[in-house]
Every structure is written in C-alpha cells, then in structure tokens.
C-alpha cells in the first residue's frame, strides 16, 4: 500500500466547489451536453404545453376578470418555455432554436409531464391541474434558483415569482370551488380525481433526473415530495375535499410516451410551421 498524501480541509473545499465540472464522466467541452439538453427540454415542454392549454380558455372564461388571470398565467408559461427551449437548442448545438423545438418535434420527442397535457375540462378541472402543477413547479424552481447551471438558475429565478402567483391563485380557486356550492364541490372533486394519477410522475427520479440532481443542475425531487403532499393536503382540506386515494402512477411523459391528448394539441399548435416548412413568420 503506497503512502498517500492526506486530504486537507482546503482540498475538500476546492473539491466541493468543483463538483460537476471536471469529473471523469463529465462531457468533454466540445461535445453537446445531452443530458442538460434533455433536462432543459423537460422544463420548457412543461411550460409550453400548459401555456398552450391555458390559452384555450381565452375568450371563454367564467368572467372577464378570470379571462385576464388565465391569460396572464399562459403568458408567463409561454415566456418560460421560450427561455428554456432556446437554451435547450443552444446546448444541443445543432442549430435548433425554441421555435424549431416547439413546432417541429413529434409526440415521442416531447418531454413534458402528463399532467400538463390533460384537457382543460371545466374550470374546476383546469384549476385542479393548475394547483397540482404550480405547487410542484414553485418548489422545483425554488431549488433551481441554486442550480449549478447559470442559465437554468437565471430563468428559474425569474419564473419562481410567476409560478408562486399561479400557485396562490389556483389554491384560492380550489378552496372557493371546493367549499362553494354542492355542484362546485362535486366538480372540484372530479377535477382532482381526474388529475391525481399524474402526480407521482412529477416526483419520478429516472436516470436523467438523478444525473441532473447529482451534477447540481437539477433538483432531487424525492426530498420535495413530503412537503408537496403536506401543502396539497392543507389546501384540499380547507376546500372541504378529500384527496383521491393513491392510484397506480401513470408515467411515461418524460420518455415521450404521452396520453392521446398531446397529439391533438400538437396538431393545432404546429399546424402552420408544418404546412409551410419554408416560411418564416
């Protein structure tokens, strides 16, 4: 056994600082960081698809004021998507920008979670989806403000304020509809029943999520799960509703295995760039 130099405290500090850069399995500088690309796609696609869904309400909301609120959320989400997808394109280094990624991928290449692609249903179902998603997105972005990736951290820092508002607003609606009339309570309960099976996917730590967390780019979602459930439960209880019993988790969105709904959403969203591939707008 050769004698080894001792590891001094200052070495440990340096080692901590260098985590994520310079490890032997870190990608070489001139190769695209494909897991960062994939991770940015997940973030961007979540926002894009939910923004697209919320925008469907425009002109059809329960009141003019609510129309404004829903459009504000949709605008925030489309803005986040633009940042994340442009960044994903830059990281990939194949000349694709946010528009290329948004309008020229098929279902199999979308990386959003299944929850955001769920149909709007009635206003209660939309608010259940929003509350379940925004509560999660807020916790995630909170974490990502400390991401080792500067761009992810910067976008998260801007977006966390937006989604924090989404969480508050949707929670207020969940409470009012749950504790409103008999009809609204039933509709709100149905909204949770519809969306609940897609919640476990939000916390699924697949290989990419684990790698992103290990490199300090992404968040370790497992440590957020309990806080998330406590938050959701407290709002649901205030709304005098019951959380649906845990069902078998439906997964697949992060691998491109989506519900039937996404294909239809993409048909609408991508129609123009697909029909006129040579055109710019």
């Amino acid at each position, binding site marked *: 056994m050769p004698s080894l130099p001792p590891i001094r405290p200052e070495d440990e500090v340096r080692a901590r600082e260098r985590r994520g850069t310079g490890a032997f399995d870190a990608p070489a500088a001139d190769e695209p960081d494909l897991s960062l690309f994939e991770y940015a796609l997940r973030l961007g696609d979540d926002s894009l698809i939910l923004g697209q869904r919320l925008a469907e309400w425009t002109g059809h909301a329960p*009141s*003019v*004021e*609510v129309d*404004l*609120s829903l459009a*504000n959320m949709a605008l925030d989400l489309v803005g986040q998507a633009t940042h994340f997808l442009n960044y994903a394109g830059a990281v990939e280094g194949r000349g694709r920008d946010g528009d290329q990624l948004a309008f020229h991928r098929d279902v199999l290449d979308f990386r959003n979670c299944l929850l955001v692609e769920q149909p709007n249903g009635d206003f209660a179902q939309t608010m259940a989806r929003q509350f379940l998603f925004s509560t999660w997105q807020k916790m995630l972005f909170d974490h990502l403000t400390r991401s080792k990736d500067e761009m992810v951290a910067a976008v998260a820092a801007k977006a966390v304020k937006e989604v924090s508002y989404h969480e508050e*607003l949707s929670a*207020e609606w969940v409470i*009012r509809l749950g504790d409103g009339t008999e009809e609204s309570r039933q509709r709100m309960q149905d909204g949770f029943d519809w969306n609940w099976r897609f919640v476990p996917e939000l916390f699924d730590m697949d290989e990419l999520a684990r790698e992103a967390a290990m490199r300090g780019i992404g968040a370790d979602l497992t440590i957020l799960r309990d806080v998330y459930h406590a938050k959701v439960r407290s709002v649901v209880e205030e709304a005098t509703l019951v959380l649906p019993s845990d069902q078998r988790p439906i997964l697949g969105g992060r691998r491109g295995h989506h519900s039937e709904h996404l294909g239809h959403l993409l048909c609408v969203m991508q129609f123009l760039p697909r029909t006129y591939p040579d055109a710019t707008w």
Partner: protein
Amino acid sequence: MSKDWPLWEVFVRSRGGLSHRHVGSVHAPDAEIAVRHARDTYTRRMEGISLWVVPSAAIVASDPADDAAMFDPAADKVYRHPTFYNIPDHIKHI
C-alpha cells in the same frame, strides 16, 4: 341565473413615494380575489407596486348638487396661500 360578482374600486400606487390613485374597478366575489383581479387587470404593464381594493358600495361621495356649499367657501380664503403676503425681494429664504 346570470348574476355577477360585486363591484370593487381599484387604487394603484405606481411607485414609492406616491399616493394610491383610483384607476378603475373590477368585479370579484371577495376581497382576496378582488386583489387578484385588480392585479391581473390594472398592473399588466408594470403600472404599480401596491394595490388597494374597496367595495364600491363602501365609498361615500359628496353630492355634486351641493358642491357650491361644499367647495365655494374655500375660494376666498386667499390668506391660506403664500403669495398672499408681500415680502420685499431682498429678504431671502422665506
């Protein structure tokens, strides 16, 4: 069957140091949602840093038919204004 929510008056402080100013109104079922609606309607373009909402029904206004008695008596109280007093120009800082 097509009832609408109560009306709220909205006041916005556009930046620190300024008073809240009346900007319009929104309909909302309660105070919390009224603040949300005011934010989503009246501060979409960075118009404000603080919001007040007040139930429209709670505003008490003076009666315009009575405005002569209300406001005209202030017109001849010129001694309330600094320019009423003649001070020679060479006296400074007053």
